[in-house]
């Protein structure tokens, strides 16, 4: 079982968390001005990289809060967790790079 470091509660077992999909996918401010192409891309296209992935998690059976994480999808190793609303931590490799 993975141990995930909640930014609020510290390291906790995977069972207490829910995955929330790719992070930093900003909802367009004014959808009605978007082309069908862009709206479809916002709704459905995802990076889905092999390697580091910025993603949302919720500590649903703990503090209840959403937060973001950088996880390597080839190892499930968590490189970082950080609060929602803060940018991806500086100095970390880009999507698809490996964590170690």
């Amino acid at each position, binding site marked *: 079982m993975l141990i995930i470091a909640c930014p609020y509660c510290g390291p906790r077992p995977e069972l207490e968390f829910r995955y929330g999909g790719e992070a930093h996918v900003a909802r367009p401010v004014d959808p009605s001005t978007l082309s069908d192409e862009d709206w479809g891309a916002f709704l459905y296209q*995802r990076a889905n990289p092999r390697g580091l992935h910025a993603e949302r998690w919720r500590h649903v059976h703990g503090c209840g809060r959403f937060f973001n994480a950088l996880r390597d999808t080839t190892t499930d190793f968590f490189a970082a967790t950080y609060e929602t609303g803060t940018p991806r931590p500086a100095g970390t490799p880009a999507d698809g790079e490996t964590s170690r």
Partner: protein
Amino acid sequence: MIIVGAGGHGLATAYYLATVHGITNVAVLEKGWLGGGNTGRNTTIVRSNYLFDESAGLYDHAVKLWEGLSQELNYNVMFSQRGVLMLAHNIHDVQSFKRHVHANRLNGVDNEWLTAEECRDFCPPLNIDASTMRYPVLGGALQRRAGTARHDAVAWGYARGADARGVDIIQNCAVTGIRRGPDGAVTGVETSRGFIGAKKVGVVAAGNTSVVMAMAGQRMPLESYPLQALVSEPIKPIFPCVVMSNTIHAYISQSDKGELVIGAGTDAYTSYTQRGALHITTHTLDAICELFPMFRRMRMLRNWGGIVDVTPDRSPIIAKTGVSGLYVNCGWGTGGFKATPGSGHVFAHTIAKDEPHPINAPFTIDRFRDGFLIDEAAAAAVAH
């Protein structure tokens, strides 16, 4: 022509390119070994009782090809139409399965409703004693033409058939880039063993589709999740059919070797690790033990994971792409094995003719822009 991925779908595509379209200058490139991806990891359930017309057309096309496949390939793929029984545990299940039964019949696909007692008669190990169950069995939908097949044999049979007609199957050859000309059209692929030129490239890379398509600058409506299965120690023949329960998330059949073959739902987060979390499989075994108390003392021998590429509507994509000469067959999620012959057949048509076969015409990438989803996810949330 190049096919990326020697899973069942890729090999079937090559086979039908050769047999139906007479195109044999084809290389199937595989980064690992034949059928080492999801083809060799899946629980082999074959059925076609999907809700929507488009799906019924596609999956029943496949079942019809399955019915003659051992003959056609002269290779025993051990297709066994032992029936797939899908259990209903609550009123919502009952209503949704009955709707499926009616929709399927209108589409000429067999599917029938059984009471709980009829379910038990069809599958004697099934527990239908409501007083002992958290989620009692209220009935089930049975497709008698559905069943299982031997996964490796499907890969080997198609590989042998394609090879015999001149197709090159190259293992240990990972595609690392897709080269495009000044007009944007595909000119070939970079691989771990050098460049190979080709005017047409068909990507059939299952869980790795996003990664391969990114090599051509294409973003996909896909996410890749681990899906796990496990088998028990072998026992004498005891289990006559396939039973699936989506509500309590378990499905089971018995292989010809005697092992109980058990499958779980997808793991909770995207990953390429080809393994999964143990709590997912133990949860599945909880459900199996409640449905089949006689298996409570069985020991499990092996468990493993495969990486499945999931679309937002849980229906596949078999289509041309935004890049001229690039075709993609993906998004089969947890349930593409059953479609292997049909998928290869219509994808070969799509590549050969540069236009889709009528059966796969609705399964475009553009449906996620235009809103024409084929929403099997919402219809039943049933996969496999």
